[in-house]
């Protein structure tokens, strides 16, 4: 069970951060810097104790796996960007990593996004229930009109293209509204979590 003084510190930090809702003030500034400092310190500590020490230092030094020295050398080469004479070595590792990343992303794109394109081809007519046909039709119209809005190879002076692009823009606005609605829900959920912490963990009111 968490000791009460830890909960009290948490409550103090929460109230300190929320003091910005009243106005900009030194209390908020203090807790903001505390938060940034704690997060950075924790990240540094975590990387040392959970990544570098068990996964790199221990195999290299205690288990005698000498080849684990190479990741250190490759990593250190990044810092040669500060040397005019040896900057080519930094570029070498950078382009290698860019190539590796681009290659893996290409594979990820094929397996990740091609199914999206495939699933956008849905039958508007056929032996499907009416609500499925309606959904497919709505998706077809949305896809065509929104694509026409972003299609700049044809002049948007043409009446058909203008009309389609306008419908596409309206549909985009509807989508943005849905996204914003979800955003409000998400932000409220985070606020509710903090209020629940203050009420039930700090003030110990009955749930």
């Amino acid at each position, binding site marked *: 069970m968490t000791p009460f003084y830890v909960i009290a510190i948490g409550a103090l930090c929460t109230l300190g951060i929320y003091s910005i*809702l*009243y*106005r900009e003030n030194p209390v908020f500034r203090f807790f903001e810097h505390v938060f940034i400092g704690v997060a950075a310190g*924790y*990240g540094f500590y*975590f*990387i040392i104790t*959970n*990544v570098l020490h*068990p*996964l790199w230092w221990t195999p290299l030094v205690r288990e005698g796996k000498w080849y684990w020295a190479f990741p250190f050398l490759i990593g250190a080469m990044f810092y040669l960007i500060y040397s005019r004479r040896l900057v080519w070595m930094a570029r070498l590792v950078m382009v290698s990593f860019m190539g*590796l990343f681009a290659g*893996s992303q290409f*594979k*990820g*794109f*094929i*397996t*990740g996004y091609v*199914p*999206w394109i*495939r*699933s956008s081809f849905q039958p508007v007519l056929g032996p499907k229930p009416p609500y499925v046909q309606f959904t497919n039709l709505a998706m077809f119209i949305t896809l065509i009109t929104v694509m026409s809005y972003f299609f700049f190879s044809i002049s948007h002076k043409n009446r058909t293209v203008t009309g389609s692009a306008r419908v596409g823009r309206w549909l985009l606005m509807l*989508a943005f509204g*849905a*996204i914003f609605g*979800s*955003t*409000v*829900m*998400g*932000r*409220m*959920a*985070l*606020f*509710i*979590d*903090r*209020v*629940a912490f203050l*009420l*039930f963990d700090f003030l110990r*009111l009955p*749930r």
Partner: protein
Amino acid sequence: MTPVSGERARHLIYALLGLGTAAGLLIHVRQPVVVTPPTRSLRDSIQALPRNKLVILSIGWDVGTRGENGPQTEALIEDFFRSKIKFAIFSFASPPGPTMAEQIADRLARKHHKTYGEDWVNWGYRTGGVPMLMGLAKNIPRIVPQDLYHTPISKIPVMRGIRDVHDIAMVIEITGSASLDPWVGFWQGVYGTKLGYAPTGVMVPEAFPYLHAGQITGLQKGLVGAAEYERLVGVRGDATRRMTALSYDHVLVIALIILGNWLAIRAARRRQEPEGQAP
């Protein structure tokens, strides 16, 4: 409006929001929770899993999104314990995530009399991103040689026979950031591994193309999705208890949007009226 009245209005809105949220949490009003198809689909796919394989509960969240991802994780672990599904807590996106999820699992394990190592395992955080996930698919003990408590994986009973991606029944990504793509691109897309997704509310609209394309089998939509899942499991947890507060907040926001627009329209009409005719 003058700047002073604007500031007062802002303070009033925050006060109303705080009071509404507190009232929603303290005054229990049972609300109907309607289960939507994406949540039902997630539950159905979990229930259909073979019990001799492991589920990876990928934790992509930390304190910043605990308000949503915490109840989602709780609802899923509750279901795993009840359904006798063995799982591994793991993260490649959030260093503190596995520790926070472990606290939830530990609390629920006491309730269900479950034992660490036999009913679940915590692989902890692993760095390396996509290349690490590609390696994990081919050789799990090599990528995860020890658990969160530095116990060798070979000595943990639940890990017996778990070698590669084919011993994993499903991966469920619970996240507040864009950490689904690596699973889709390098596990589901390559090996056909079942994927479930529990994002925060902000990310829900972007999740539907994955569902539509069949890349994920189900979806828990933020806090509401967690409440729906609790309804399916038959438990009244944090998510369900917070629904009243969420509803109060939403009603308040809608009312304020209507009020704000009405005031803006009224002010615009007054400006358009010729001087001397204004009431």
